[in-house]
């Protein structure tokens, strides 16, 4: 651990020689035998008796007597000397010529090596890591993270679909006027499913809350006018009374009544003012309670589903009435299709039943597909059809429910502010009420 002395100055060399000379004198070395100055080389070596190069202040045992100086009894102590080594470092040598700084760093390195070995032994042997011959990549996986990610992925896929469900716009039952439809959305087009009997384009409307298709079919020698409607919320089926009262004095033509609404598609209803009986409920409000005792009353509930109850006092004992679930009722009938099958009631076949069921007359009906907010309006132009045949034709469309409304000259189908069927007897008659479907998309 000694650094070679290198290129010391003459003054430094003289000082070295002086000190060295003092050392040699005290040990009895003859000057004649040895002249350090003559033999001193600039690289810090001297040549001894053996002509071998030796370092100044060598600590080798061979040179110790000649160089390292007198023993302590001689009283000379080499002071601590600092030199510039070959590497440019300052080297301090103690009286024994040993490199004091090197001594400290050497010991430190040894201690560090031992500590490192101990730590290595401690880590390797007891834990058996050396024995763990194979680990799979799953050792780096955490089951919690894996499962939570999987669950979140599953949930996220479902939520993405759910959140794609469009918002459902709602109309307040108390709203007198609903939002106006988008005029540009009234179009005509060829449809893959619904086709006019003359192959002309069908009428079509669609916005975020309602979709309507209107087409005509020829059945049993009569033109059937259909309007298929999808709505997003039950509040979009509206009913309106002229002047909001049931009175024969308060009547108007259907296109006028419809024109005062913002309906997209509509139809004549039960002309409730024509008779003095039949339970009428409009927007949850009971307008008339007098019963006929025989009619089928069509009930439209808050879920947008149609059903029937008899027009008698038991109506007011029904759960659906007591729970306040009824939005509208229609009082004409009979029910044509119930639970996908033709109603076998005599109300469809008795010539004396309401609506002249056995005559060939124009007809009108409101229907529902399943329990969806998916409906069908239907009118039959003159010469018309019997009520039973009407029920059978309606049943072939696949509706779950169909209810007969006032036919004859009353039967009127309305779309985009105009009548789109051929009304009997040359033109529409005035009436007390209509029903219609409105958009719920608010106007900007």
């Amino acid at each position, binding site marked *: 651990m000694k650094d070679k002395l290198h290129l010391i100055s003459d003054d430094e060399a003289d000082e070295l020689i002086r000190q060295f000379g003092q050392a040699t004198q005290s040990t009895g070395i003859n000057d004649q035998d040895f002249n350090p100055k003559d033999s001193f080389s600039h690289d810090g070596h001297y040549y001894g008796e053996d002509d071998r190069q030796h370092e100044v202040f060598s600590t080798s045992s061979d040179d110790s007597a000649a160089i390292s100086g007198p023993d302590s009894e001689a009283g000379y102590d080499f002071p601590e000397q600092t030199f510039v080594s070959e590497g440019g470092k300052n080297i301090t040598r103690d009286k024994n010529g040993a490199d004091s700084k090197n001594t400290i760093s050497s010991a430190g390195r*040894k201690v560090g090596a*031992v500590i490192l*070995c101990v730590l290595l032994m401690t880590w390797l042997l007891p834990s058996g890591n*050396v024995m*763990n011959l194979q680990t799979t990549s799953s050792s780096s996986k955490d*089951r919690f993270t894996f499962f939570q990610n*999987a669950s979140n992925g*599953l949930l996220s896929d*479902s939520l993405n679909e759910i959140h794609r469900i469009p918002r459902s716009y709602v109309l307040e039952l108390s709203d007198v006027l609903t939002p106006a439809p988008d005029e540009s959305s009234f179009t005509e087009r060829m449809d893959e499913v619904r086709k006019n009997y003359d192959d002309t384009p069908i009428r079509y409307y669609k916005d975020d809350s309602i979709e309507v298709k209107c087409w005509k079919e020829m059945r049993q020698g009569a033109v059937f006018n259909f309007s298929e409607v999808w709505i997003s*919320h039950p509040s979009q089926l509206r009913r309106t009374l002229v002047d909001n009262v049931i009175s024969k004095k308060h009547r108007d033509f259907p296109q006028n009544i419809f024109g005062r609404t913002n309906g997209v598609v509509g139809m004549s209803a039960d002309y409730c003012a024509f008779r003095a009986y039949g339970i009428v409920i409009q927007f949850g409000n009971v307008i008339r309670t007098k019963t006929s005792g025989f009619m089928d009353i069509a009930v439209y509930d808050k879920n947008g589903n149609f059903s029937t109850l008899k027009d008698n006092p038991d109506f007011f004992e029904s759960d659906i009435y007591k729970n306040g679930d009824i939005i509208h009722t229609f009082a004409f009938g009979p029910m044509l299709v119930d639970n996908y099958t033709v109603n076998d009631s005599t109300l469809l076949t008795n010539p004396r039943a309401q609506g002249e069921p056995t005559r060939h007359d124009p007809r009108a009906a409101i229907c529902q597909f399943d329990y969806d907010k998916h409906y069908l309006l239907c009118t039959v132009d003159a010469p018309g059809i019997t009520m039973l045949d009407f029920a059978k034709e309606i049943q072939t469309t696949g509706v779950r429910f169909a209810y007969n409304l006032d036919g004859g000259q009353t039967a009127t189908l309305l779309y985009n502010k105009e009548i789109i069927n051929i009304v009997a007897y040359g033109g529409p008659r005035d009436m007390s009420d209509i029903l219609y479907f409105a958009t719920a998309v608010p106007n900007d």
Partner: protein
Amino acid sequence: MTIVKRTFCLLIALAAMVSLSACDMPMSIVGDLPEPEETVTCFFDSVCEGDFEGADEYLSGVSLSMRDKVTGVFSQKLYDYLLKSYSYQLKGPVKSDGLDAECAVDFTYLDLNLLNEDLKNLSTKIGKSYISEAKEGYVEKKDDAISLTDEGAEKIAAEALDSLMATPEKYYSTKTFKMRMKYSFGKWLIYMTDDLFEAISGGFETND
């Protein structure tokens, strides 16, 4: 001897010790030690009981224990259904040479991949229905429109999951896994494979 030499000798001795410890030196066997078949059955029994800490005792270098509890209504339900789905069956005898062993096991689990599509469809159907009904607790009304709340959407997904799990077998997968074991420090340890790990976790293919 100089300190340098002593240190060098110490390192040599250390290296020798490490080498010896790495050797597969047969150890003397004392008493009754578990057979590899018992290890496999105990492992899967623990998994089927949901005792993953117990299952870890039979594994080498990996843990099935969950570091946290599963959170969220939907995730908690899903996890419960996953645990209920586990079952296994050994296929044939365990082959062993005393240090290595292997066998095949059929493991059945709730496969989340099979569940995904039906869950999406049913959740959507329920969601549409709740929107049209404006079902309380699931929807909110804003700007004259009704839409599902985030909380409502998650509840819907959980309800859809409950409905599908009425017939859970449809969503179960059974796969054969090759189990490899090593005899180490007096017992047999199973090497967990990626596919078994994923099956225990439901097998859902994520983008990880």
